[in-house]
């Protein structure tokens, strides 16, 4: 369960979050809709510690996010960024298996690659994409890879930050459908 308690955040004179109070129950899927610059991404980023709120508290399963062990805490999350945010210095499979190659979730290289290819298949990408670099992929394929990365370590909580931004309506529909399937699958 994620609880936002009176969250405020300003960037200079731009007061983006004005006392957000929100609870997302375990197993619940929530969609936040709003115009550009209204703080949707900022709200997600406050949970992950990427943006520090000016005031207020965020609790995940009753624990204040500022008081938790960062690595263990972050390993519970997956995130699909607006622009994909794939690491362009490494091939696709290493992007997907990034979390499985280091830290507490580290797996042998072959196993990590196998999981990456399986996740790529899950989002509708062929195994031969694994060895290509993100710059060689189309926008829709990059989003799929990013989605594969978000689910690679089977996180408890996934954030999707405008997952269809920059995609054509058909590809947006495909990505939305994929997200729906994955959310149902992961409970």
């Amino acid at each position, binding site marked *: 369960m994620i609880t936002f308690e009176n969250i405020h955040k300003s960037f200079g004179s731009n007061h983006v979050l004005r006392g957000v109070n929100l609870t997302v129950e375990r197993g619940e899927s929530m969609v936040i809709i709003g115009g550009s610059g209204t703080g949707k991404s900022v709200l997600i980023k406050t949970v992950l510690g990427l943006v520090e709120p000016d005031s207020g508290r965020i609790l995940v399963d009753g624990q204040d996010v500022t008081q938790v062990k960062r690595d263990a805490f*972050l390993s519970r999350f997956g995130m699909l960024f607006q622009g994909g945010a794939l*690491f362009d210095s490494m091939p696709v499979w290493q992007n997907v298996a*990034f979390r499985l190659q*280091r830290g507490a979730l580290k797996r042998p290289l072959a196993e990590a690659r196998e999981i990456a290819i399986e996740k790529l298949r899950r989002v509708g990408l062929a195994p031969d994409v694994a060895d290509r670099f993100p710059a060689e992929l189309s926008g829709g394929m990059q989003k799929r890879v990013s989605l594969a990365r978000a689910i690679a370590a089977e996180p408890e909580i996934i954030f999707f930050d405008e997952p269809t931004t920059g995609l054509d309506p058909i590809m947006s529909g495909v990505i939305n459908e994929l997200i729906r399937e994955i959310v149902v699958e992961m409970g």
Partner: protein
Amino acid sequence: MSAQMILIVRALGRLCIDAISALGRLVLFALATLSHVFRPPFYLREFFTALLNVGYLSLPVVGLTALFTGAALALQIYSGGSRFNAPEVVPQIVAIGMVRELGPVLVGLMIAARVTSSIAAEMATMKVTEQIDALVTLSTAPMKYLVMPRVLAGLMAGPILVAVADSIGIFGGFIVATQTLGFNPATYILNTMNFLTSADILSSMAKGMAFGFIATLMGCYYGLNSGRGAQGVGAATKASVQAAAVLILAANFLLTAVFFTA
């Protein structure tokens, strides 16, 4: 005091406060980087990749710069020394000039041009495209994964590059002196060897280490603190090279004062 005077003093004050706070942020960033050196996890692959980029791939530009500088230095010293009937000091002055000053400074400036700019541009692009945020969400600290390997590589590659630059610079002087100025090769080498002290070489290595550290640190600092968009990347890259070059020259002065006037 007139209103105009107050405005000038206020602007100067603001400038000073900005400069001091920027310096403070930089020092904190450097300390945070160094604090990661002995704390796991260690990303060896990133370190060796950085070492390759900072060190090995800088060798051609460093070598060529040192070669031509050493050669030009020999010509200048011969011409200048002739005015005092002392053209024979070429080997000694080339050696001391390259090892104490020109070798380290050239390496520092070449790394600033080649490595600082590339690190800053890469990291700024990563920041603009949310790759830095993605790293954090994947339980990987950017300071540890991106900054520490590069800075450590700078610290290690700096002295090696300086040793190469010193040697090639002296070799450039040797070639010019023996091929065009009529110096005896054996005497030239002997004079060079006899004149250089271990303190000269140690100071050269220490400068290389310091300049490697400054160059890579500036690239990381400005890259991670870049503004938004392509303009932000450009501004970060420009600022990083400027800061690295100025700090390297300032550090060179300080280190020379410490090593040779104490």
